[in-house]
């Protein structure tokens, strides 16, 4: 049962690897935190549990198309000829998270609109440690 796992960053990442986006929900005030927190960011109660946010829709709050990335992204084939887009996406319940934007054209930023509807699309990355799943979104 996912509810029984402790709220730890490692468990959040383990859920991601199972293609689940999990936040935390405060049992006192109902506030949802993403990424999950042991201590509610709103009322500071430590009585929090997991909440599955995988199927929520979202809207693009802001974004950038990156032409000069970190070494890790260079190694993944992104460069000035092959930029990528990332941004902040706010889910329908108000929780927000940073993710890679897929199914958009980073070379045509004018076609990427703040406020556009998005849905989760996880990103699979091969790393020396094995398959890693990251947060990503695509147009809904």
């Amino acid at each position: 049962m996912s509810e029984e796992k402790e709220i730890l960053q490692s468990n959040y990442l383990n859920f991601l690897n199972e293609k689940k986006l999990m936040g935390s929900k405060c049992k006192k005030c109902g506030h949802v935190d993403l990424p999950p927190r042991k201590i509610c960011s709103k009322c500071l109660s430590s009585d929090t549990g997991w909440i599955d946010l995988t199927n929520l829709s979202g809207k693009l709050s802001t974004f950038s198309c990156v032409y000069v990335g970190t070494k890790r992204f260079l190694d993944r084939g992104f460069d000035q000829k092959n930029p990528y887009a990332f941004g902040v996406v706010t889910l329908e319940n108000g929780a927000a998270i940073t993710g890679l934007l897929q199914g958009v054209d980073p070379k045509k930023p004018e076609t990427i609109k703040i406020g556009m509807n998005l849905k989760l699309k996880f990103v699979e990355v091969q790393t020396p440690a094995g398959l890693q799943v990251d947060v990503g979104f695509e147009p809904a």
Partner: protein
Amino acid sequence: MGKLARDVAIIGAGISHFGQFPDKQNPDLWVEAFLDCVKNVDKGIDVKKDVDGGLYFGNFTADLFTGQGHLGPMLADLVGLTPKGATRFEGACASSGLAFRQAVVAVASGVADVVCVGGVEKMTALPTAGVTEALAAAADVVYEARVGATFPGLYANVASAHFNKYGTTSEDLFRVAIKNHENGKLNPKAQMPMTITDIMNQKIEKVKKSGGEVPNWKTDFDFLKSSSNPVIAYPLRLFDCSLITDGAACLFLAAASVAKKFTDTPILVAGTGQGSSSLSLHNRDTFTSFIAAKTAADQAYKMANAKPKDIKVAEVHDCFTIAELVAMEDLGFAQAGKAAEMVKNGETKRDGTIPINTDGGLKSKGHPVGATGAAQVVEIYKQLKGIADKRQVKGNPEVGLAHNLGGSGGTCVVHVFKRK
């Protein structure tokens, strides 16, 4: 609450040359800034005897940039401050702003009468991708950097939000870069002491020499809109980004009661403030303003009994052009969304109502991240004493401000200074 237990003043300030120096490491840069500072103490200072409080030092990440940690005692030893205490402070690009603030608090508390404050960063030992990676450690590595966030990328997110909310444009950002390069040209310590026009003409000359097709640029704007100013992270281009810099800065602080021993014109630290917020943008209520900056500014203004309109010269943290506009709004120089208009009207130029980044800012002077906060205070010290040479602001300014931002706004330190 909210006031210093006794008055604290700056009695000396110095800076190394800023630039790319393959033959200079952190200790070399620091010693250069220290010697410049000692030279600038009007009545001289006996470091062994006078500096009873040791060293307060800012450095972001020599560990990642050069592989060297534990810089505090290493750098104190080189300038004769050991065996007194030596502490390194880390707050990303606000590291030496933090060190300065803690030094102020130490002197105000009475634990020391005179302290040395410094900052240093050697950045150019790594290739650009390595620098980008090291700087990304100031963002949330798991929740932001892992999905593609870089520092230009995060500030580009801020810019996209600002464009969307207020109608700010790339041209508005260009004007910030143009202004800061105009100032930097007058700063002999700056990394890129050239106007944008100078840089454009240099490129044209280069193309002419190589026999290529000469670009048809008539104005700075033509050049800045061209492929010679490539996109780094849309909407930010190369000339929206500050520089990758090696450099250091140094100051001496003294209790106001002993400051006259060192100079007849000490500059008072009238207000100090510090704020914080989540590292990640996604955990914030807004992307067009930094709550850490507003919090720090509010504290500093209140302590100094000053208002934004009292500030006659300011250093703000222009790590990216958009950051200067947001800083102006967070500091109350402009209403939200109105900073671009002030820049367009020339109000932030050296002869404007509120001259900003008279030393060229991070854009033209350079941005050795751990040294920047201290270097900003060095400029305000010079401006308020009237010793800023060619870039001196007219009208004998008496009140100045320094705004030092860490990461994408997770840390901010603001200080207000007054000539006594």
